[in-house]
């Protein structure tokens, strides 16, 4: 590779600003879809995993066992294998296997059990007595879930969501390799296939900054919500 001055590298990267912006939007879209699905489906699944444990409100050994087994099953797949396995499903759901929306299918699929486990762990931190007090006061299961469990675990749930977001920022880069687009895809295409190392470095730096920001915002929000 030719010697490259810093100024030249910077100029090369700046020339790509539109592509970088586009890639960032694609990453954002993949994450938004994956995280929304995780919250909407993984969240309730996590609550169910928690509530069906022995000694909890809906203690049920068989249901808990089956759910736990399914969650472990999906989580066992290396993400790249899961992506490839889900190609037929993606084609049915999205009509294509290329692009950020198609990539969001396996991302969502992986995010659901991941977030479910995080939610389950977080809910376990709530003292049993607090839930029992609500039961003694005549709270319904729905009231216990929404007014007690989620509210008491809110700081932990935000921290869980922060972990999920950062993990899936990384997963979305993997999804990029299989035509998903996004920041990771850009880094691979220019940085690796075209030997433009400066683009790869710039993309990694961009990811570093994004991760730091997500963690900072997550920490701040969790600290503000935590009154324990």
């Amino acid at each position, binding site marked *: 590779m030719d010697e490259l001055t810093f100024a030249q590298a910077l100029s090369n990267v700046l020339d790509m600003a539109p592509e970088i912006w586009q890639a960032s939007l694609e990453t954002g879209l993949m994450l938004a879809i994956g995280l929304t699905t995780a919250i909407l489906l993984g969240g309730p699944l996590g609550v169910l995993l928690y509530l069906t444990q022995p000694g909890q409100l809906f203690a049920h050994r068989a249901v808990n066992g089956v759910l736990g087994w399914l969650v472990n099953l999906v989580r066992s797949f290396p993400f790249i294998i899961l992506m490839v396995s889900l190609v037929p499903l993606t084609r049915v759901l999205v009509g294509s296997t290329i692009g950020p929306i198609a990539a969001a299918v396996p991302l969502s699929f992986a995010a659901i059990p991941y977030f479910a486990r995080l939610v389950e762990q977080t809910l376990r931190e709530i003292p049993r007595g607090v839930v029992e007090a609500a039961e003694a*006061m005549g709270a319904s299961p729905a009231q216990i879930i929404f007014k007690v469990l989620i*509210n008491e675990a809110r700081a932990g749930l935000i921290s869980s969501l922060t972990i999920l977001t950062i993990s899936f920022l990384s997963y979305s880069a993997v999804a990029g390799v299989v035509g998903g687009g996004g920041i990771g895809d850009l880094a691979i295409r220019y940085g690796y296939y075209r030997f433009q190392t400066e683009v790869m470095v710039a993309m990694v730096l961009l990811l570093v900054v994004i991760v730091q920001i997500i963690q900072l915002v997550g920490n701040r929000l969790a600290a503000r919500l935590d009154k324990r």
Partner: protein
Amino acid sequence: MIHLKNVHKRFKKPDGGWFDAVRDTTLHIKEGEIFGLIGFSGAGKSTLLRLINLLERPDSGAVNVEGQDLTALSARELRRARQNIGMVFQQFNLMANRTVADNVAFPLEIAGWSHAEIDQRVAECLDIVGLADRAGHYPTQLSGGQKQRVGIARALAPRPHVILADEPTSALDPKTTQSILDCLQDINARFGVTVVIVTHEMHVVRSICHRAALLDAGEVVETLLVDNKTVAATSALAKSLLEAA
């Protein structure tokens, strides 16, 4: 008021055997009295208390509170009945992410009270327990005694006819203990709320109870009468507890 008839409750032990926490026990608690359940740990007193609001369901026997057979109720009806039975806990069990006022408001929220009614009642109850100036604080900012006052205000909020107190002073120092007992006695005297209190200390019985059941190995050994802060007792177990106090 509260009638437990031949209630029996057993738990499965980790080794697969059974532990009879409450054995075929019958108990009648009168309206407006402060009734103690006293005994050593493992005597079954907390389980007996928790049978009254069906936090534990008896394996056999009947639980009757204010003429209602609780074991025969549907889940919805039981929730409604529980709104009339307040409960106070040893570990307070307050919600850490709710302010003092919002903790007291909780039972009213779930009972469907309006915002205006809730605000008024919460202020009243915090006033009764002497915590009006702590309404906006969070539980971590309070002392143990203050937390228990919040617990009492919360139990009192829906105007229950019964308050169940499970070792309410066992996590507190002696001075705070007395102030909490005074608070419960005050509520009993002013509002006629029937109070059932679990304790392992004869001091608690002597200080505020009208009557108490002495429990051992899941059975009532003796019903103690308290008159002018003296406990009349005949059993050896009661005497040993009296000497310890």
